[in-house]
């Protein structure tokens, strides 16, 4: 590992020296690409080769010691793996794919990264520039397709533009509100030999990634907070992306403010942190949802008032003054009218706000969350995590796995009931501990994202919870896990249904279970085919033993837990309802 990094330093150093001395080497476009990536600190790439990117893969062959390329089994897997990698490490995830079908296969991952603000650079091969627009073999308009779902999408047609485009791509992907960038890389540019020089990018005149902090906004926000009797903070992923967890705590503690988290904001605060009042939104905790409509001042921090958080906007927090801290000006007032906007990087704005606000404690107000916690425990949580009879529940599996890792693992989820149960019952003790598809809600995200997370944080235990449906959407990635021996712990919460859809059918469509029941394969046999240790559990008594087996080493493992077939995720705010109209168990 060490020699790898030394080499990377050497290559990046040489590029810098060459630029400084003006002694530029003439190398191929493909090599310029790889060396530019190395200059950006890239050491891991997820990809899949094909005709229009072969020259790049050929060059990659010479850089096997510097760059760890992971061959996934499908390009969608490469993007989700890059996302998982980026989310846990804070670095930019990188993918290589070929043109045509390779490029269309990455659309889901790019869309997911766009909605969840994940820094990612996808480099797709493209037919030679002379063939563009002719319906050449595997030609597709990648820039046109990806413009609506990227921060920036650019076609490189000449080798002279490669290092410029890479520098710009990385700057755009990771600065400000992060997001995906696509580079559509024509084959002629890959092959062409030109002078190489690398200049990192830190400025684009048409792009202001981080708005300057405006003292008047801080002042106005502080005044509202100081006057508040019932202030409530809504914490989103912006805090994590801005590495502002400590600043957040300092702010909440000084001003005595309780906080709720969005799905992607989970793990910004530890689960047992006294001011952390839980999870917001459709399947969130009762307290934070009810209190949103009781608070007199709401401080939204790096969150975007998604409809899964707000429910019916006409009945959302109407009594409250709203302060919105965000790095993205276009989020201000997009869904909810805002009284004070505080633009900037959460790390800076929170620190500035903390300095300005008065010390406060709001003891009574903070304590008033307790009754809802108790209600939820009695009505929902106890049954879910300590059931006394009946089939195994999803919640108890999640809580036991979490505890078996001392709540230190990275949680990865797929989408559906498994996602909501895992997010609710897993416990977080450090930041960047959840990787889940929030905005796009992509089934099949789980397995590849978990692989990327493990590669991005190799020292941490990575536990993936997925449904039997979602698992089968990307289970070909077991091949990648086998080949690379990626030590992910996969837990299928098998209910033999597309559970979340079945839940809606039960609650809102008269129990008409239209195409949601699934006949499943023997998952343990599938794991065996890939040489991955596996066990299936039906009885509660077997659960702890199986979890211990799974966690005893750092190897990949598939645990199949057959859970209750008709479990329901509660509490639930039905889609479009007011956030205080919460369904509890019958």
């Amino acid at each position, binding site marked *: 590992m060490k020699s790898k990094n030394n080499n990377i330093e050497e290559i990046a150093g040489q590029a810098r020296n060459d630029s400084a001395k003006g002694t530029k080497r003439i190398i191929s476009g493909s090599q310029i690409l790889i060396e530019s990536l190395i200059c950006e600190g890239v050491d891991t790439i997820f990809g899949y080769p094909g005709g229009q990117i072969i020259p790049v893969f050929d060059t990659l062959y010479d850089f096997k010691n510097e760059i760890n390329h992971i061959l996934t089994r499908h390009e969608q897997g490469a993007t989700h793996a890059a996302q998982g990698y980026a989310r846990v490490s804070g670095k930019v995830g990188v993918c290589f794919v070929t043109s045509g079908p390779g490029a269309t296969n990455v659309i889901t991952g790019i869309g997911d990264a766009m909605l969840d603000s994940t820094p990612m650079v996808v480099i797709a091969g493209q037919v030679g520039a002379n063939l563009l627009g002719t319906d050449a073999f595997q030609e597709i308009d990648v*820039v*046109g397709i990806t*413009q*609506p779902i990227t*921060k*920036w*999408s650019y*076609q490189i047609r000449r080798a002279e533009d490669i290092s410029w485009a890479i520098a710009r791509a990385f700057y*755009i992907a990771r600065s400000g509100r992060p997001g995906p960038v696509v580079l559509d890389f024509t084959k002629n540019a890959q092959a062409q030999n030109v002078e190489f020089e690398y200049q990192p990018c830190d*400025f*684009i*005149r*048409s*792009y202001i990634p981080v708005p300057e902090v405006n003292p008047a906004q801080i002042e106005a926000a502080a005044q509202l907070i100081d006057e508040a009797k019932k202030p409530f903070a809504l914490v989103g992923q912006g805090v994590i992306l801005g590495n502002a967890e400590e600043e957040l705590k300092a702010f909440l503690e000084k001003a005595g403010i309780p906080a709720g988290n969005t799905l992607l904001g989970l793990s910004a605060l530890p689960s047992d942190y006294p001011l952390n009042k839980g999870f917001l939104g459709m399947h969130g905790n009762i307290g934070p949802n009810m209190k949103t409509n009781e608070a007199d001042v709401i401080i939204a921090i790096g969150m975007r008032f998604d409809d899964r958080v707000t429910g019916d906007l006409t009945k959302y927090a109407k009594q409250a003054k709203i302060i919105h801290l965000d790095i*993205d*000006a*276009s989020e*201000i*007032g*997009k869904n909810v009218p805002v009284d004070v906007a505080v633009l900037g990087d959460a790390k800076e704005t929170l620190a500035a706000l903390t300095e300005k606000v008065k010390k406060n404690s709001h003891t009574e107000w903070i304590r008033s969350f307790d009754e809802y916690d108790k209600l939820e425990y009695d009505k929902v949580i106890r049954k879910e995590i300590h059931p006394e009879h009946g089939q195994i529940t999803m919640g108890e599996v999640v809580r036991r796995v979490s505890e078996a890792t001392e709540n230190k693992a990275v949680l990865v989820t797929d989408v559906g009931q498994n996602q909501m149960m895992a997010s609710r019952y897993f416990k977080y003790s450090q930041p960047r501990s959840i990787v889940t598809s929030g905005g796009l809600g992509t089934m099949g995200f789980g397995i590849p994202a978990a692989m990327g997370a493990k590669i991005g944080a190799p020292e941490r235990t990575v536990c993936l919870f997925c449904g039997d449906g979602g698992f089968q959407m990307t289970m070909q990635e077991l091949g990648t896990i086998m080949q690379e021996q990626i030590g992910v712990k996969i837990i299928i919460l098998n209910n033999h249904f597309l559970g979340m859809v079945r839940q809606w059918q039960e609650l809102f469509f008269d129990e008409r279970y239209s195409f949601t029941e699934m006949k499943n394969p023997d998952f343990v046999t599938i794991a065996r085919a890939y040489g991955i240790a596996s066990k299936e559990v039906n009885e509660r008594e077997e659960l702890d033993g199986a979890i211990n087996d799974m966690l005893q080493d750092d190897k990949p493992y598939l645990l199949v837990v057959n859970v209750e077939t008709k479990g329901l995720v509660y509490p639930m705010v039905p889609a479009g309802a007011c956030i205080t109209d919460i369904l509890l168990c019958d």
Partner: protein
Amino acid sequence: MQESTLYTITIFSENTVGLLNQITIIFTRRGINIETLSVSPSAIKGIHKFTITVFSTKDMIEKVVQQIDKRVDILKAYYSTDDELVFQEIALYKIATNKLLALGSIEEIIRKYNIQILEMNETFMVLQKTGHYKETQGLFDELKDSVGVLQFIRSGRIAITKSKVERLSDMLASIEEKVTNEG
């Protein structure tokens, strides 16, 4: 429900391939129809200026303009209402020469509508009129009924703000100042 009014959106952008698409997809997503569009190089070298008019509500137009402004290649986007602008459109009308001559006094029409003649031969004439939509449309309606119009074309709106603040040059100046201070 807020009322729908005509807004003029002014956008300054880098001159890169695919920029128009980046802008139009933002309207498409929200189901907004573009009424007029005009694009050309601006007074500042390398920067293009788009003038777009749409019917929308104030609430919606604010969000849309922010989302346009956010795109990496866009320098600045803002919206204005008609009272904040001096604006103009240009229209061309192709008319059969014999029909127009048969009308009698061309002079009268030219004076009344303040028209220019761009081309004239024995088969057709091309008239040009600048003005607001109502004016260019008024002439079209009149000509259509009296002599018939062989071809008609109207440009998108171009507009200049009445404001004393020059938003783009001020912005560029402040960027420049920052860059020189920092580096």
